[in-house]
């Protein structure tokens, strides 16, 4: 047993080294080609596409030169703040609703049809109504983001409970567990990974929605930056803004993955 493990490990190591060596070269070629291609097309048609270094300069400028009265990092902060407020609300409402829907067929029968009705409507479609109701300020944006973020939270919390392997319940009953212990020792921990997966989707959903909401009307935030870039015909500002948005999205997802590993260390088993 132990020997075959070593055999596998060494084999994997060799294969990996070989594979990585060629892969990284390909990656490098790919990136270099991409940047060259980008630069040449930008040079040929500079009005529509900024050259890579222009984007970089724009970003560096953004650090201390304010755009519409605020420096770049403040704009980013505004977007993040909206996301976090809305995210917290979505979690606070969504998880209990989802859990109740998963746990009780009766509650599910009441809520599910309404939920199904709202689900296919893109949260962004609500923006006009939200502006009508709450004006163009923070409330309407947070409202939209909550709408976007709450769907995966509810869905995953519900499924998290529904999809628990029934034999886990059998196991706890055979060990003498009563119904309160069943919920505490099986229902809650077993649904945690699914809930967490929902939170991950939900966070990226929230980030997408905040950008969209800020595109519709805002005086600050990353969505505002790129729409501003469009209206002042500064493509470097647009692309720079997109880059910041992308990097933030990526960092948020990394953060969630790390958090998940802390909270559900056993989850690796559930993936296959």
């Amino acid at each position: 047993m132990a020997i075959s493990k070593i055999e596998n490990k060494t084999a994997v190591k060799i294969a990996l080294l070989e594979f990585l060596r060629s892969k990284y070269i390909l990656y490098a070629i790919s990136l270099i080609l991409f940047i060259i291609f980008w630069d040449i097309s930008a040079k040929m048609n500079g009005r529509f596409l900024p050259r890579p270094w222009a984007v970089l300069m724009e970003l560096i400028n953004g650090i201390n030169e304010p755009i519409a009265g605020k420096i770049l990092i403040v704009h980013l902060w505004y977007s993040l703040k909206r996301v976090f407020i809305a995210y917290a609300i979505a979690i606070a409402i969504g998880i209990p609703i989802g859990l109740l829907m998963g746990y009780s067929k009766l509650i599910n029968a009441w809520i599910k049809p309404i939920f199904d009705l709202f689900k296919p409507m893109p949260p962004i479609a609500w923006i006009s109504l939200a502006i009508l109701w709450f004006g163009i300020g923070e409330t309407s944006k947070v409202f939209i983001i909550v709408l976007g973020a709450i769907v995966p939270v509810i869905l995953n919390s519900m499924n998290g409970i529904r999809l628990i392997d029934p034999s886990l319940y059998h196991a706890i009953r055979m060990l003498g567990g009563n119904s309160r212990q069943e919920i505490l020792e099986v229902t809650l921990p077993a649904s945690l990974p699914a809930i967490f997966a929902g939170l991950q989707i939900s966070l990226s959903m929230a980030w997408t929605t905040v950008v969209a909401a800020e595109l519709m009307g805002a005086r600050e935030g990353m969505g505002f930056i790129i729409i501003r870039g469009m209206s002042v015909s500064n493509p470097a500002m647009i692309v720079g803004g997109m880059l910041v948005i992308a990097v933030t999205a990526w960092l948020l997802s990394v953060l969630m993955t790390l958090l998940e590993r802390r909270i559900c260390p056993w989850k690796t088993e559930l993936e296959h």
Partner: protein
Amino acid sequence: MGKKSTNTLVLRIIPYVSILSCLIIWQLIVVLNIVPNTLLASPLQVIKLFIYKLNHTQPDGGLILVHAFVSLKEALIGYVLALLIGIPLGLAMGWFKPIDGLIRPLFEILRPIPPVAWIPLTIFWFGIGLSGKVFIIFLAGLVPVVINSYTGVRMTNPVYIRMARTYGATKWRIFIDVCVPSALPMVFGGLQVALSVSWMTLVAAELIAADSGLGFFITMGQRLLMPDMIILGILMIGLTGVVIGIIVDKVEKRLVAGMWR
């Protein structure tokens, strides 16, 4: 046993009761003026507007079904493009290492950018016409399509590949015979995700800049301070989304049933 069957009957009725009571409460809120009519339209008003908009172009310059058709057309063109390019690309990336190596970095850059963030650049490049919308939808749909096709190939049971190899099948042959059919269910799983992302992005694009389409219809409703228009627009978007979702699902089930059991 008797108790159980009444229970299931109750569970079957409740959803209808639930929706009906929601509609009634909504209607009452407006009729009793709990929320003023300038902020919220009642369901009956929305239905009235829908019937009116079936053959009247005022006040936004188009019939409601024409708006829906415009949105649908933009969405479908972009979506189909994403499938045509994304599926082969994702499948090939999953199996052929050089293609993976060359495309992956670009894809990893593309992936975290929320599709809506492309809207300003796209408008800047293409204006607010058809080509711009199609481009955005294409980008939005591409990412999930490629990821699922790629993962599908990657998840191919290695025994199948080893089996084909021992019979002397070429790399290409294994790809066609084993990897592609094995990836299909996963590929189709990506279609639904891609569809909902595409649809949402289209709506956003139309809200920002358009002269027709359902998103434009909503914007007009906001400008004219007509909540019934906004709500009708939202409902139409939801409904259309559901309808294409069902169509994709049906097509998908057909195709999968044809190749997989």
